[in-house]
Every structure is written in C-alpha cells, then in structure tokens.
C-alpha cells in the first residue's frame, strides 16, 4: 500500500501538498466561570505523531476538539497550515476526527458509514460505494460491508471509524482516546497499526491519551498537560528522561523527585541538602547558595544494597525500610519508606535483586551517581498544579 493509493480521485488535491502543521496561539477555553484550558501555545509540526497526555480533566480533549472545530476557543488562535481556522466548520479545516466512542451511525451499514462523507459531498451512489469499498479493503473489513455497527466487535468498529475518517483525505487526523475501549491485546496491536499508518500517510496525527506507555510508544512529540496548561512539549525521550517539572516527572512515572537547598555552588558539582539531611550531588549548575532546587532520579538508575553501617554524611545515598516489592518480570519494583515525604522507588534488575532478595521490613540503602541526577526547572510544591479549574471538562 503506497501513498498514491490513498489519494482517491474524488479529492485529488493531495494532502501531502498542504501543510498539516498545527499552531495554537494563546488559546483559552472557558466553560462558565472556570477555564478548561488556558495559555496554550503549541506548534505541532507537519507530519508528526503528537500525543496529548494527561489525567482526565486536564483539558487535552478540549484542545483536540478546538482543533477539530467542535469547540470554539474563548480566546486565542488556532492555525492549521496557513489558515486561521477559528469559526470555520470542521469540514473546511482538513481535519478528520476519530471519536472515543467511534460514533458510528447505528442506523447505517458499515459501507454507508464509510461513504457518509462522500454522500454529503453529493458524490453519486455508485461512485461513493466503490470508493468506500476500496477504503474498507484497506482496513481489511470489506467482507463486513453490509453489517450494522452493532454487529461488529470493538476492534472492527475502530477500523471502520478509521476508514470513515481517512476517506476525507485529511491533512490532520485527530484521535480521541482511540485505544481506550479495547482490551490489552487489541490495544497493543492497534497501537502498532496506528503508528505504521501514520508513517505511511505522512499526515499529522494528534492523539489524546491518558496512558503514558501509549504516548511514549507512539509519539514523535508528547505534550504533557496538567489542569488546563501545558507542562512540557518534547520528544518522548526528553519527556521521560529529562522532565522539566516535578509534575511531569511524577506523572510519567519512573522518577523519584527530591528537593533540597543549595549548600555548594560554583564550578564544583552542586550539592543540595534535603530537609531530612540527605546530601544530593549533581553536575555543576548555576544556582546560588540557599536556593531551593528539585531534582529527579530515574528509578532504574538507583543502586540498591542492604543497609550497611555507612557514615551519616554519605553523598547521594538514602536509607529506609522496604514497604512493598512488586515483581515486574525483567525488574523488581522496590518501594522504600525513607521517613519523610513520598516513598522512594528503585527498579532493581531481577538478577541483582534475586542474588539477595530483600523483603518488606528490611532496611536498605539506595545510591546513585551525580550524572544521573536531573535538575528540574521548577521547585516541587507537592501539588499537582494550579487548581484554577474544576474537574468538569
């Protein structure tokens, strides 16, 4: 299946020529007195796979719907390619949306569902049927063309929804939690198919999800959102490895967040001292003595041993009592109570762990290298984010 096959004759104006770049400028959306999203500035490059990631109620679906034209921003501008699209009907935006519930028309057959767009453009019956059949063949559902949506499995319904979106020959495909209704096995399979479809079509995909592994696996660009604002927009690797804020570090998982006061600055490696007295050494950084600084340390970069009689002045070392162990296959997730604040988590590779399996209640010491300490741009306040909105959207 090549790209040329995609461009059906009815809408020969090729998607590839027009840019599917999306630009949001100072976008805000208000529902009643509360903001669903605010201060949104984001550029999604043409042809990229972008995931909007965040917990439910963070406003990611609102952003998607504003791009689609199903929601109008209260202020700000939405650009697709070189068009400012606020106020334009969805069909003039070159976007296609795949709904969370798929929104297949229950009273129309699969074929008529896929052909709906062509029918709205007054394409003749024969012509639209043959085009829709062609599209159904592409998603391998041609044999089910006369069924009604209710007679299809969840995975099949999703393919129909995909076919119905793609027949509009969009330059941007918007996916609202497309995998959330599928079981684990199908989810992984469809995830792969979405990725290769995007590679093949070369158009922009914007995919809303609340699942971190899904975002990391799919996206060229991950946008992490927190209560109506964008915390970080970056490559998946940057988001996971070098989060900018404590919120992103926690939300992506895989990180421990520590906060301390700068006790050594200058050209030497910087040192922080946490409230409970832990000394954290990092690479040199431009902070002043006495500044509060938060850092994150990846769970899988943590050394792990039974507690020794180490000196209390040890650097990059933390002791505590195990409160939970979870076997994860290739590693063991060990949760340690370190006396104050949130528990510290170390992902210990299984061969190291099982050499001397420690259990709940055992005292352990964890350590890490200065180069594995990542300095966050924002000091941890312990809160998820500014709580200026209610949870309704």
């Amino acid at each position, binding site marked *: 299946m090549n790209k040329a096959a995609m461009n059906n004759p009815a809408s020969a104006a090729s998607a590839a020529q027009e840019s599917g770049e999306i630009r949001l400028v100072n976008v805000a959306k208000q529902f009643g007195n509360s903001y669903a999203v605010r201060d949104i500035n984001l550029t999604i490059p043409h042809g990229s796979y972008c995931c909007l990631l965040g917990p439910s109620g963070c406003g990611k679906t609102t952003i998607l719907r504003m791009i689609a034209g199903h929601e109008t921003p209260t202020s700000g501008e939405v650009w697709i390619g070189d068009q*400012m699209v*606020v106020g334009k009907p969805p069909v003039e935006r070159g976007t296609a949306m795949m709904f969370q519930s798929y929104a297949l028309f229950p009273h129309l057959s699969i074929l008529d569902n896929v052909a709906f767009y062509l029918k709205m453009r007054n394409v003749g019956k024969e012509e639209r049927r043959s085009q829709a059949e062609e599209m159904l063949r592409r998603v391998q559902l041609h044999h089910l063309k006369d069924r009604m949506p209710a007679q299809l499995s969840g995975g099949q319904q999703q393919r129909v929804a995909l076919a119905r979106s793609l027949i509009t020959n969009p330059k941007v495909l918007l996916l609202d939690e497309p995998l959330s209704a599928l079981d684990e096995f199908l989810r992984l399979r469809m995830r792969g198919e979405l990725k290769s479809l995007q590679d093949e079509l070369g158009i922009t995909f914007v995919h809303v999800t609340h699942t971190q592994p899904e975002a990391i696996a799919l996206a060229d660009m991950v946008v992490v959102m927190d209560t109506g604002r964008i915390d970080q927009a970056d490559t998946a690797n940057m988001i996971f490895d070098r989060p900018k804020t404590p919120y992103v570090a926690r939300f992506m998982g895989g990180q421990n967040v520590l906060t301390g006061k700068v006790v050594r600055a200058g050209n030497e490696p910087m040192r922080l001292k946490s409230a409970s007295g832990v000394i954290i050494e990092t690479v040199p950084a431009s902070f002043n003595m006495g500044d509060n600084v938060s850092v994150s340390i990846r769970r899988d970069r943590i050394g792990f041993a039974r507690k020794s009689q180490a000196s209390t002045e040890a650097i990059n070392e933390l002791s505590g009592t195990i409160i939970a162990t979870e076997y994860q296959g290739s590693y063991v997730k060990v949760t340690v109570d370190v006396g104050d604040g949130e528990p510290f988590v170390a992902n210990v590779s299984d061969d190291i762990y099982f050499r001397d399996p420690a259990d709940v209640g055992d005292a352990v010491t964890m350590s890490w290298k200065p180069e594995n300490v990542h300095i966050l741009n924002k000091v941890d306040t312990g809160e998820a984010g500014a709580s200026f909105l209610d949870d309704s959207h």
Partner: protein
Amino acid sequence: MSASHSYGSRPWTFYALALLFTLFVIFLYGPMIAVLILSFQGPSASLVFPLRDPSLMWFDELFNPRRVGDVSGAFGRSLPLALIVMVLTVLISVTAGFAFRRRFKGATAIFYMAIASLIVPGLVLSIGILVTFRYLGLSANWYTSGLGAHLSWALPFGLLIMFAILGRLSPSYEEAAYDLGASKWRTVKDVVVPIVFPGMIAVALFGFTLSYDEFPRSWLTVGTKNTLPLEIWTMTTNVTSPALYALGTVTTVVSFIVIAIALGSIVIIQRKRSRGK
C-alpha cells in the same frame, strides 16, 4: 484579526426554534390563562373579554346545584375515584413491572395486551364495558365499571413508566443486598423501593390525572351519576355563564396542586439523596 472570526455565537436556528418554542408555550397556556381570568367576571356575565367588575360570584354559583348542576357531587365522585385509581395503578403496575424483569411464558402476550388496551379507542372500550355489565346483570357505577375503565388505560401507562425505570435498575443492586445477607423482603424494602421511588410518584401522578380528567372511557361506564369531566361536558351545552370558566379554574387548580405535590416530592427526595441524607 480574530475579531472577524466567530467565537461560539449561537446559530440562527437557535433563535428560530426558541421563537417557535415560545409561541408554542403561549399557545399551550394562553387560552388557559384567558379562562382563568374570565372566571372572575363580574355580574355582566360576559363570556369574553374585557373583564368587568371582577368578583367571585361565579365560584359561588358553581356550588349552587339548582343553577348549574351537581358540581360538588361530581367532585365528590371524581376525587375518590382518581385516588383509588392512583393507588391501584401504583400497586399493580409496580408489581407487574417487577414480574416483567424475568422471562416467563405469556410475557409477550400480556405486554401486547397492555399496549392494545392503550391504543384501543376509549369509546369502543366504553361500549364494551357497558355491554359486559348489561350481560352480567350489573348496573354501571363509577366505583365498579368506571374504575375498571380507568384502570384499563392507566395501568398500561404505569407499566410503560415502570419499564423505563426498572430498565435502569441494575440487578446487581439486589444481588449485592442478598450477598450482604438481606432477606428478599428487606431487599425490596431497603434497596429496591428507595431506588424506584421517584418513578412510583410519576406512576401515581399519571394514575391520578388520567382518571381525574378521563372522558371517553367514563362516558358510558360511570352510570347515572356524572364524574367531573362528564359534568363539565353537560355544562358546555347548557350553561352559558362564566360559571363554566370558574369550574375550569377550580379543576385546573386541583390538577396543579396534584402536579406540584408530585414534582415537589420528587425534587425533595432527589435533594435528600444528593445530600446523603
């Protein structure tokens, strides 16, 4: 530049349909309000506007049987009849609603029988019941044949409402109650009834008003003494004073009180629930 773009204004269809809706509401309520006002007509006894020397004389007239007929007697029959129909409708349609949650032989037949009873013209049924009572040598009476005629129309309505309510009642509530050691009776009393209670009030409202206002089914079945709608019907032909409007006002007020009680109690229950008692 963004000023030239539309930021979520309502489409013109909203205003067109809002206008249609407003006109419809005026159409619904306007005449009723006209009657309400004209029932306070003065001694000029004019049946049309303007209202001159407002007074309560026509309400007085209303309960003077020599002048306008047996209005108070009709009230005295219609109210108890409506209350009996209400109670029976709730009891019978609620129990039947529960029966229909299971599969049993004859369920479809009984369901279609109820639907047919709903759509059969009231006059046909009226004749049928009259003929039946004739053959059995019974005389038609509001509390026998009249009651039956009203039930044949109120019960299917009640049943349909119960279907809508019980359709939303997941069996897992009851299963959870059994799991927690509740007896069958306790489950019904402490779990099911509280959940379906607002629906039961709706059924009661339907039962009451369908009976209180029913005309065609009452016509041949209530015997020699009229219920209220029949009394009004006779008055339309021989009473040419605003007393007719006064009667309209009185019955409408009774209806509104019943509606207010029903809706009010539903609101109170929902409020209590959302507050967690």
